[in-house]
């Protein structure tokens, strides 16, 4: 049965991707589907955990999760359609941040309660297992998961019809996954229970793990940056306002320790501490949980059986928070060592005005000055020209053909500090982009008028033809 679900889910996954990426070929579809799989697995895990945690509310959880996922996917799509790209990312990232803060609060509450003091953090807490609470939790988590999935898809223009189809595809996918989660849940033995805090930590961990693979949604790196900055600022202020550098008590070896605080590692380790503490606190809280009182049992064997059962149950509940620690570690790892990918946007079609000039606003839909490669496709008279606009690290805008003077015009991708020629795999330092020669992209003359970059269409086409014809001729000549 699970197999059938999985088959249908693969099918709808492909539909989903195809719908989102309108003009893409088979291979792209496959590649993007593969990239989506971790996110979907994370969501699958979330649904499974919720089903376990809200045992007895399974149908509510399933329905709410599916609904949440569809809302997340379509909602984010609508956001992407109606606002600049940055806004949806900010929205999703804030949602993730809030969930992490919430986890922090919950973990502190959990550890506080484990010391034996009973407190109720909020009114609905005790009613967590009621249909409404379960539904809301499942829905919210799934909305965020769906949003992360959408952020993982490449952007493309969408019409109302495709949006509708997208919602249907997402729904089908969610349906298949949620029901396979339910089937899996039935297979698991009943003794694996999940506490409320364990459920929370697992859900947040999976969401953060899923988001950490997307550079723009990653929370860990900004967190460690913040920590580093915070520490630096604090030490600075502290030193300047309170302690004079040649103070009597500050000997040179103390400066060494102060120097440690200025190291780059402070951010990383500090970030790690903040990152892991909630999950560890929750695990500790479960570890500290009181065992049931067995004093009323007269017979030793019975007393010990009850104790052993309680200990076993506590260990079972520890599994999820400890697994979450592993998931958090994965997220931190993904964030620290992002998989190297060449930034290679799809060329945007662009046209010239009557006077034959191409005008691209610097701060339009795309920010040309963000230091990234921006590719465009210009068509004129049956000829196609690929070119890109890039701001070099020196702060100079440059317009170049997406081809060099010698290689086949396979184009360029951007890596850390350099661009790579896809044909000969040569790395070209970013600083030298815009200068002719070698395998560097061929520069094109352009002018900056006000807030626009203006390129002459004829020059562009001519430059492309001479370059490409030259390289093509060499190629033919060789055969």
């Amino acid at each position, binding site marked *: 049965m699970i197999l059938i679900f999985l088959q249908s889910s693969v099918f709808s996954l492909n539909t989903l991707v195809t719908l989102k990426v309108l003009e893409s070929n088979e291979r792209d579809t496959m590649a993007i589907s593969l990239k989506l799989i971790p996110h979907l697995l994370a969501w699958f895990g979330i649904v499974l955990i919720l089903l376990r945690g809200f045992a007895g509310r399974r149908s509510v959880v399933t329905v709410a999760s599916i609904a949440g996922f569809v809302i997340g996917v379509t909602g984010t799509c609508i956001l992407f359609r109606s606002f600049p790209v940055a806004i949806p990312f900010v929205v999703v990232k804030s949602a993730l941040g809030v969930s992490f803060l919430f986890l922090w609060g919950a973990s502190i509450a959990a550890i506080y309660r484990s010391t034996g003091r009973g407190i109720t953090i909020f009114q609905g807490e005790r009613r967590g297992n009621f249909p409404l609470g379960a539904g809301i939790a499942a829905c919210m988590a799934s909305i965020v998961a769906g949003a992360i999935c959408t952020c993982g898809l490449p952007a493309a223009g969408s019409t109302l019809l495709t949006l509708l189809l997208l919602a249907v595809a997402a729904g089908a996918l969610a349906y298949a996954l949620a029901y396979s989660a339910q089937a899996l849940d039935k297979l698991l033995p009943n003794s694996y229970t999940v506490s409320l805090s364990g459920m929370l930590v697992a859900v947040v961990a999976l969401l953060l793990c899923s988001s950490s693979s997307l550079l723009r949604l990653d929370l860990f790196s900004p967190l460690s940056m913040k920590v580093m900055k915070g520490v630096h600022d604090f030490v600075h202020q502290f030193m300047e306002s309170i302690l004079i550098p040649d103070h009597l008590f500050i000997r040179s070896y103390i400066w060494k320790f102060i120097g440690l605080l200025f190291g780059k590692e402070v951010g990383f380790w500090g970030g790690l501490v903040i990152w892991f503490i909630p999950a560890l606190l929750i695990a500790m809280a479960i570890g500290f949980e009181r065992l049931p009182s067995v004093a009323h049992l007269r017979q030793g064997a019975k007393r010990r059986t009850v104790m052993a059962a309680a200990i076993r149950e506590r260990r079972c509940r520890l599994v999820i928070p400890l697994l979450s620690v592993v998931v958090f570690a994965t997220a931190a790892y993904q964030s620290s060592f992002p998989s190297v990918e060449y930034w290679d946007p799809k060329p945007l079609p662009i046209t010239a005005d009557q006077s034959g000039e191409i005008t691209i606003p610097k701060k339009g839909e795309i920010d040309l000055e963000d230091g990234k490669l921006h590719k465009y496709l210009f068509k004129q008279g049956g000829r196609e020209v690929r070119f890109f606009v890039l701001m070099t690290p020196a702060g100079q805008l440059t317009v170049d053909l997406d081809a*060099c003077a*010698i*290689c086949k015009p396979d184009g360029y991708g951007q890596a850390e500090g*350099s661009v790579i020629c896809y*044909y*000969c*795999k*040569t*790395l*070209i*330092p970013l600083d*030298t982009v815009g*200068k002719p*020669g*070698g*395998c*560097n992209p061929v520069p094109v003359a352009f002018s900056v008028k006000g807030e626009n970059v203006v390129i002459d269409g004829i020059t562009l086409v001519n430059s492309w033809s001479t370059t490409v014809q030259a390289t093509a001729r*060499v*190629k033919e*000549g*060789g*055969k």
Partner: protein
Amino acid sequence: MLFRILKNSFLKRPKAIFLIFLSIAMGSAVATAFLGIAGEISHKMALELRSYGANILIEPSAAEGGGFLREEDLPKIKTVFWKYNITGFTPYLFGIAEFSAGGRKERGVVSGTWFTKQLEVPGEEFSIQGIKGIAPWWEVQGRWPEDADEAIIGASLAKRLNISSGSDVTTIVRGGNQKFRIVGVVTTGGYEEEQLFAPLVTVQSLLQQQGKVSRVQVSALTVPMDDFGKKDPTTMTKDEYEKWYCTAYVTSVAKNVEEVMAGSRAKPIWQIASAEGALLKKLNSVMLLLTVLALGASATAVSTSLMASMAERSPEIALMKAIGADRFQISSIFIGETLIISLAGGVSGYLLGGQLAELISRTVFNSTIASPLWLFPTAIISAFVVAIAGSIVPLRRALLIEPVTVLKG
């Protein structure tokens, strides 16, 4: 309770435990030592093949006499086809010299070079060339020379002369002499530590070789060599040659540079090491094989001694079973025992293996090695692997013990 059982079992049967501990420690020590040496060899090879740092050496071609390159050709390096891939270069002029400082006299190599030379090439952007950019791994205690009579000295030459930063060294070459103020001591881990580095101009006039350099080191961003890159350019078709020339293989960049330097021959530095590299690779695989064999042998030893102790302990296992221990509980006692021994064995194997590696590398390879951090988990893991592999058969035997037959006795 598990720990109490284990603790008492350890305390009461020290001999059997020690035997197992010994075999595990031996296996993990050998694994650590061999893997450490193999790793060190690979590390050294990787340094050799690094894509940053100097990877092309330009020397005067043997055909032309003279034996020098012209300094005036140097800026042309920045104008070649691959100019953007050339991240830096440094010229050297060498001469044997007598150094004297504080009464001591030693022979050594004086080397004129650029440290941070501001190079202006017409039509190109102004750039800074020299050792500082090309050899970022050099550790200089002190600072880099700035004036014409300042120099840095290699660590081992400095040791021989017994001087440090701030001292003065007089350099004598064929009657001519020049006084240098030492501003830094450099550690490179290579032959450079036997040299004194001074500004090129000063050394040129000292050696009376104005405008000449002995060799140039070039550092270029290159593409890793593949089968295509190894092909001989002269046998290529035009199409292939075009692709070869436009791919930044170290060989094609070298050829490119060679074209602009009159009377020069440029060779990729890795070629020098390639024969050595092939040998080291073979050595590495022998090391790996030996490691696997050593681990296998120690697993067999562990297995044998565990078998013996199982036979001795079968009444005890039978009793535990009769009292009601299931297979999981029995296994956890015995696996826990071997794991604890192997943890101890792994740690001592690591310590022992480090010493062994150093001994081997000192006597056989005549070089010191720094035991890298990854060897520790390797030692522990190999100890675990040995312990687990060695305890599979004995554990199966233990689980098959029938309380009825054993307790009958």
